[in-house]
């Protein structure tokens, strides 16, 4: 019988039997320890305890204190303020940051400021492109402020315009439309309850009062005065903070979007008709809002104001609104502009836009139409800038 031996000449059988004696005692000890540890952790996790309550309250309080400390005007105007935006389409978060930056550091030198709704915005190329076109024609830089946003109300227009400051110099282009003049001021109640801008504005508050509402109580504390803006966005803000990602503002969203189908067109037409049925009774009140806005910039040697009509789909003009209605609107706004000493531009008769250039009744969705509309505006801006 051959007996196996270990390297040092020991007996292998003895070694194996010795191991067998050791292993049963070591293995259960480790397993037991792990089991006991797991059980202790689960015990702590699942049983109610004062420690857990304390940690929960401390965490909650800590997050709130962190929010109160970190969410300030300075944070909202910083480069990383995009963290506070809901998503790339959150026009009002991005506009708030820009407005706060202007409040801190007013624009120096002549600027062109564009303020209006998405229909005005979608008709124009991005601000940088307009600035480049102007600079090329003028031979000197002409920065462009893009304060155009989806469904902008008179309250927001006033607040954004005021952020340019009393020393603003240049051209202020304000979007105007049939729909805007027919807007129901009672709709603004929703915006008072659910403000979209993250800054307080005296002009915005004045506009709220002029429309029969009371602005919220202002404390002077940034977070308290604007808490609804941040509370409404707390989930994306937390996600942006945890993931380290921030949305990039998507300023032109209709380009390439397919035209409204028959059902959508019919639905839009109904809404537009319903709204325009109140045009006559509401137009003067809504022009009053524009009048208050114009009065924010009384010196025409410093600020030229242009009321610019939004693009209008010829199909909507012919089939939904009616040419006579549009002509009467143009005459009304022209007369108002003359009274106010401001300029009124309607590029629709000269831009040659076709129904195929629109997504719906007012939003341009083709690049060449946008380019044509922008070129027309730039052509009109040049003489106004050169000979104010």
């Amino acid at each position, binding site marked *: 019988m051959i007996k196996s031996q270990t390297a040092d000449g020991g007996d292998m059988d003895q070694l194996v039997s010795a191991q067998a004696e050791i292993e049963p005692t070591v293995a259960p000890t480790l397993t037991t320890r792990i089991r006991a540890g797991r059980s202790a952790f689960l015990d702590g996790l699942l049983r109610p305890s004062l420690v857990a309550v304390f940690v929960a309250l401390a965490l909650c309080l800590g997050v709130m204190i962190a929010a109160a400390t970190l969410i300030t005007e300075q944070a909202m105007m910083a480069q990383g303020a995009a963290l506070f935006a809901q998503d790339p389409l959150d026009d009002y978060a991005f506009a708030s940051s820009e407005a706060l930056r202007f409040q801190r550091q007013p624009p120096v030198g002549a600027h062109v400021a564009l303020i209006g709704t998405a229909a005005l915005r979608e008709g124009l190329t991005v601000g940088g492109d307009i600035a480049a076109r102007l600079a090329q024609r003028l031979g000197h830089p002409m920065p462009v402020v893009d304060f155009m946003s*989806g469904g902008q109300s008179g309250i927001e227009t006033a607040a954004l315009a005021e952020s340019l400051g009393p020393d603003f110099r240049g051209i202020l282009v304000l979007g105007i439309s049939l729909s805007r003049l027919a807007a129901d001021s009672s709709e603004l109640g929703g915006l008072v309850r659910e403000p979209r801008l993250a800054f307080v504005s005296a002009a915005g508050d004045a506009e709220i009062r002029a429309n029969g509402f009371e602005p919220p109580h202002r404390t002077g504390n940034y977070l308290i005065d604007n808490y609804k803006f941040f509370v409404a966005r707390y989930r994306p803000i937390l996600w942006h903070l945890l993931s380290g990602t921030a949305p990039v503002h998507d300023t032109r969203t209709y380009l390439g979007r397919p035209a409204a189908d028959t059902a959508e067109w019919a639905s839009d037409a109904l809404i537009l008709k319903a709204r325009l049925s109140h045009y006559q009774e509401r137009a003067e009140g809504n022009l009053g809002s524009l009048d208050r806005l114009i009065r924010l910039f009384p010196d025409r040697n410093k600020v030229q104001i242009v009321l610019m009509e939004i693009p209008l789909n010829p199909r909507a003009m012919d089939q939904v609104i009616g040419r006579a209605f549009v002509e009467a609107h143009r005459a009304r706004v022209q007369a108002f502009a003359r009274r106010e000493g401001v300029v009124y531009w309607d590029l629709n008769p000269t831009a040659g836009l076709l129904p195929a250039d629109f997504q719906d009744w007012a939003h341009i969705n083709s690049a060449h139409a946008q380019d044509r509309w922008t070129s027309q505006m730039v052509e009109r801006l040049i003489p106004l800038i050169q000979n104010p």
Partner: protein
Amino acid sequence: MKNLLRRAGQAFQGLILGALLFGAIVTMVQIETGARVFRYQGF
């Protein structure tokens, strides 16, 4: 060691409860005050 793990479990429970409590408080404020991201496109 066992005690430390129990404490870790309690702390983890606290973190979960804290996150839930914070979410509940903010959601309650959101509902109570009507704070939401107002979406209004077009008209």
